[in-house]
């Protein structure tokens, strides 16, 4: 019995193979949410990983010591019979207080050392440095102005997508609940754009249930708690790129489909993005006139597909969604329609490369073409892409959770997709857009 039996040998061989597979998989790439190795692009995430790595080495050492002692005992102290002989006694050692005190103190000391470094790292993750950047922004009256922007973004979770608000004015974001914040200068969804190499402070909160905002390659996560602003959390990206995230606090039906991305751009491109985001949709003079007539309350039959789309948008979408330049006279009241009380602002829909809570791409990653198919499918039947509740909450509460199926005709869907395509950046307006489209592909 001292030698391995064939069956035991098989087990050992299997375990060896398994270990080898573990080691191989530990080097797997193609994991855009990975918290380790090359996927890390932010100093916070890297600090966390390098600290964890050496704690893991200690953990491996402890585990293999325990396993080693057990296996040694199994090999050397095992007896073969089922029952003991009467005189078959090991030395009856019942205690050794020196040893006990030693192995109580040793882990305590080891943990105390880990604790010291933990507190240091914790401290640095929770401190913020001040480094404002200068931005040219629209002043709201058609002109331009320059602001000092302390990079700070309000992150709002709701079932099942993320909203990002940029406030360039002098607003104390930390002290305010999301419901009481003034209108943001830029409101975007699912894709947060940040300047590269700069610490960004995130004020994270929620409109409905608890969510958690997590961009693993940049930093750990922080919960979005309704009615509270979390203590500030920060992210920083070293390289331009697209960084993936996933809601990590269970938030109901489509929790698994609540994703987000961070797009890091060099400062100049970030400025371009800001400028573009602060403009409304540019319409042809005829269409602008058409919209103006609608705003004035006139009933005008649409003259072309574009005007048809605007008409459809105003009647079917504008009760929740904003499209600057098209829905200006309509006050969207998503709070009456949706439990979360918010729907994505679509003014710059096609400047983003992902939609439907970050699970579909706005552009085909291989061709760069506008992804009409997926967007049309989303408009036709949202639940086929992202599960949601198509029924109202209850008999007394008619609010919905998620984008409803509006029963749009094929023509309406087609018109709306074209309207959304119009929100894309114009030729030469946004140099890095191609790069973002490419980076958005997960594969």
């Amino acid at each position, binding site marked *: 019995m001292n030698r391995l039996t064939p069956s035991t040998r098989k087990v050992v061989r299997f375990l060896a193979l398994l270990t080898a597979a573990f080691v191989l998989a530990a080097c797997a790439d193609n994991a855009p949410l990975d918290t*380790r190795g090359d996927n890390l692009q932010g100093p916070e995430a890297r600090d966390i990983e390098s600290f964890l790595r050496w704690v893991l080495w200690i953990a491996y050492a402890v*585990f293999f010591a325990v*396993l080693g002692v*057990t296996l040694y005992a199994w090999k050397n*102290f095992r007896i073969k019979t*089922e029952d003991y002989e009467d005189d078959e006694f090991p030395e009856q050692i019942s*205690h050794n207080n020196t040893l006990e005190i030693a192995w109580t103190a040793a882990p305590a000391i080891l943990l105390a050392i880990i604790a010291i470094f933990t507190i240091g790292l914790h401290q640095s993750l929770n401190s913020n440095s001040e480094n404002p950047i200068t931005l040219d922004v629209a002043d709201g009256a058609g002109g331009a102005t320059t602001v000092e922007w302390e990079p700070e973004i309000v992150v709002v979770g709701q079932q099942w997508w993320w909203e990002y608000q940029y406030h360039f004015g002098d607003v104390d974001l930390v002290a305010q609940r999301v419901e009481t914040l003034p209108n943001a200068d830029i409101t975007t969804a699912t894709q947060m754009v940040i300047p590269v190499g700069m610490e960004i402070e995130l004020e994270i909160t929620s409109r409905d249930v608890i969510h958690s905002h997590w961009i693993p390659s940049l930093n750990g996560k922080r919960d979005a708690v309704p009615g509270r602003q979390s*203590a500030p959390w920060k992210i920083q990206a070293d390289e331009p790129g697209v960084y993936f995230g996933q809601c990590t606090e269970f938030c109901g039906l489509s*929790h*698994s489909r609540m994703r987000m991305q961070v797009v890091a751009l060099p400062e100049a491109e970030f400025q371009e993005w800001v400028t573009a985001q602060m403009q409304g949709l540019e319409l042809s003079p005829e269409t602008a006139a058409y919209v103006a007539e609608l705003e004035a309350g006139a009933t005008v039959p649409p003259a072309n597909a574009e005007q048809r789309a605007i008409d459809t948008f105003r009647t079917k979408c504008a009760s929740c969604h904003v499209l600057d330049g098209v829905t200006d006279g309509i006050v969207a009241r998503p709070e009456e329609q949706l439990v979360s009380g918010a729907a994505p602002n679509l003014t710059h829909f096609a400047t983003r490369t992902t939609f439907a809570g970050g699970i579909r791409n706005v552009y085909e990653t291989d061709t760069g073409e506008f992804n009409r198919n997926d967007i049309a499918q989303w408009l036709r039947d949202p639940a086929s892409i992202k599960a949601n509740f198509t029924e109202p909450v209850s008999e007394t509460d008619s609010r919905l959770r998620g984008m409803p199926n509006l029963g749009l005709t094929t023509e309406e869907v087609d018109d709306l997709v074209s309207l959304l395509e119009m929100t894309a950046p114009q030729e030469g307006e946004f140099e890095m857009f191609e790069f973002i489209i490419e980076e958005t592909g997960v594969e």
Partner: protein
Amino acid sequence: MAIIDRPLAIGAGDDAVETVDRPLGSITRPQESGTWRDWLTTVDHKKIGIMYGAAAMFFFVIGGAEALLIRLQLATPNGTLLSPEVYNQVFTMHGVTMIFLVAMPMGAAFANYLLPLQIGARDVAFPRLNALSFWVFLFGGLFLNSAWLLGGGADGGWFNYAPNSTVTFSPSHGIDFYALGLQITGVASLVGAINLITTVLNMRPKGMTLMRMPIFTWMNLVVQFLLLFAVPVISVALFELTFDRLFDANFFNTEAGADPLLWQHLFWIFGHPEVYILILPSFGIVSEVIPVFSRKPIFGYSFMVASGVAIGFMGWGVWAHHMFVSGIGPISVAAFSLSTMFIAVPTGVKILNWLATIWGGKLRFNTAMLFAVGVVSMFTIGGLSGVTHSIAPADTQQTDTYYIVAHFHYVIFGGTLLGFFSGFYFWWPKMFGYKLNEKLGKTNFWLQIVGFNVTFGPMHILGLQGMSRRIDTYDAGFGFEFWNLVATVGAFIIALGIAFFFVNVAVSRRQWIAAGKPNPGPDPWDARSLEWMTASPTPIHNFDEEITVDAPDEFWHRKYGYDTEGNVVRKATAEEVAQDGSNTNVHLPSPSYFPILLALSMPIISYGLIYSLWLCIPGGMLLVYSMVGWIFEHPDDPNAAHDDHGHDDHGDAPDELAAGDDEGELVGVGAGAPETEATNG
């Protein structure tokens, strides 16, 4: 059943004549019938323990089936086996079932069966309350699972964070079943805790000081104290949730200004001690099994006890490590990060003491020992990954990923469940009179431990790769495909291993019957503690006579001594030392209808709260009836055959009953007389 008569005044003198036809109170206590009906009215801690175990096994099969569904859904990207709606219910109910309906009651099964035996007592302090605990737990568990048939299970996760648990976000009744079902099982835990604490503290025999108690008893004592203080906390939270959902209260309504972190704090102040409630019974089992199969005393008994008690205390100061990313503020996070780190110290002490016990021993690696040693290694992995979470900055990357799923399965499966299996193989002959088959047992062990590591090992990697928990599916391209498939294969290996356990029970039992039911003797393993000092299976009255204890491992010291050179020599055989269970002259607490009736009223009331308050009226009436009947129930069955010990009549007062027994009957097993306890129970 009879009407409730006005009870006769106690001690009213000779006028108050109590006869067989007209017992004190009105309900004639049920009598042993020798059929399955005995199990419904039994107050015997052994029968109750076995029922606890059987019920926990039943729920284990349900929870296991849910686990397999989860793994099938996640085996490949974009799985479509379960809709998101159903998946959310399945993972919620898997967690709730495994924790509240498997791990906790399985611990209660062992505690119920063994605690009185290990301290040499006749029964628990309050036998009827003990029956109540079991029935309340069983009905609570069935109530909870009945949600599946009534529109779907809870869908908020076992942790059920507010405000996702409010009616707005979960309009179906699933979470109502969760809140009320756990409230009911909480009653079971509380009643059990009070009962077992009283038992351990009051019913030890002469000489069994606290520091001579077996470690299993010690660990369970700690567990019962944890339950006693932890369950009320979740009860409060569940009441608030129930009132929010059913009566429009605003405890967790953020629109009305509620702070959803209130739920998190309440849940985890319960939830973290709960982790130790789950693991300490297993630590106790391992501490019994390893010395027996090493033929050595447990190394560092006092440190083992002290570390268990230390875990019990420190377990209260670490709850907010579940909330490191909830935004509770950096100072709180730092404090809880440190406290969590240092709870690893007493746990580490236990691991090292087990290793020291094995070291230099004569090791018999039978199935019970394999499982016990498996706990030592596997729990170490869970403990070490726990240390990596206690580092708050690292936890911001790990929490709510599969790394956490891996961690707590290494603790609860690798620690708790493997420990229970060790206990099954170890105490099976004591409970049922036959050993389980070793060959099948070892197959059971190896399949289980390999399957376990194949399932949960890869989850560490998945978590570090960024796979979130509680997601019903994932897309290709995130690097999650391979290890998810491996984990699914592992889950089925575990299922096969568990199947071998059931096969083993069936086969071993059949072989035993075919062999003419040979008795394994009182002490089939050459064991150390008092439960082995009586016949197998344990006779109904446990012990023939009271045991006086002179040392820890009393039974071992009666079998063995030391010669002048300090070598161990046998003084007596187990058969010579052990009691043979032949004493028929023992007065036992009588069965009762009321525990099961009282328990039954709780789900009726709960269904009423959910569907129609009218149903609460019959439920409430049953509740009150059972309580009143319980109070006035005759302390003993007057029709039971007490002729053995020569009474013509029973005294009027319970204390007379207890004191009145004289000839031959054993009154004082433990510090309290069983009759007295039954009366008060």
